[in-house]
């Protein structure tokens, strides 16, 4: 084990194979947590963080350039803003449909409970998008500074 020529992480067989096997399941689990927040513990915050953890793992092992090729920094910056816009947009749509701000009952014409389900789904999507983008952005900026 020579320390003057360290092997890069993407050349290490164990790290490469394990992470390539795990990362799809991490992202899938994040999607599961996002949409099953209504039925068990979970929701937008946890799902966003797990998404970001998957991306960060890929970035750590295969390099910042690899992950930034997949998810450019501009997409991450816009994603953070888009999440907040989605959340506020749901509230404004409720206003336009005649209810109060973020009053989900008016989102569905025939059954208020369906409106609640739709409202909660969209709002958690917005939250998940913002949290995932913010955490990935933080990782990008910290890594880019180290260059």
């Amino acid at each position, binding site marked *: 084990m020579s320390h003057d020529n360290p092997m890069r992480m993407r050349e290490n067989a164990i790290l490469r194979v394990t992470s390539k096997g795990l990362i799809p399941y991490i992202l899938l689990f994040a999607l599961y947590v996002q949409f099953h927040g209504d039925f068990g*513990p979970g929701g937008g915050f946890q799902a966003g963080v797990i998404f970001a953890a998957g991306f960060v793992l890929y970035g750590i092992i295969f390099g910042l350039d690899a992950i930034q090729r997949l998810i450019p920094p501009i997409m991450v910056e816009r994603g953070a803003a888009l999440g907040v816009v989605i959340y506020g947009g749901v509230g404004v749509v409720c206003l336009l449909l005649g209810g109060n701000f973020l009053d989900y009952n008016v989102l569905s014409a025939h059954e208020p409970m369906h409106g609640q389900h739709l409202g909660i789904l969209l709002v958690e999507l917005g939250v998940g998008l913002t949290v995932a983008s913010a955490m990935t952005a933080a990782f990008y900026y910290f890594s880019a500074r180290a260059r």
Partner: protein
Amino acid sequence: MSSFAGHWVYWLSIALMMIGLYAVISRDNLVKKLMGLNIFQVSVIMFYVALGKIIGGTPPILGPGAEGFAYFSNPLPHVLMLTAIVVGVATTAVGLALVVRIREAYGTAEEDQIVQMDRDEALAAERSRRVRR
């Protein structure tokens, strides 16, 4: 007087809080201060969540798993603390970014050296201003 069985959670939360506070006020390294703040935050969340716990209760999720339990644990502290955790990590991120910039500007991340450098610079500026007059 309060009993141990009824209050040990609060006492241990306060102990944790004081450990975090000690790290923030006594350690000079900025990153160590932020770690102490992290400990402090977790202890406050622990305290809050312990307020909502009901012995003999179940997590506040309705459904077939919750049959046979008389109480649900209070969901309101959980909601507030969920918010607090995520906001806490966001502020930790900003704090660590500030530490990185301070390290780049001063060459060190130890508070006593930074304060000393600022004092030396102010002293040198004062001296040069007096010479010019």
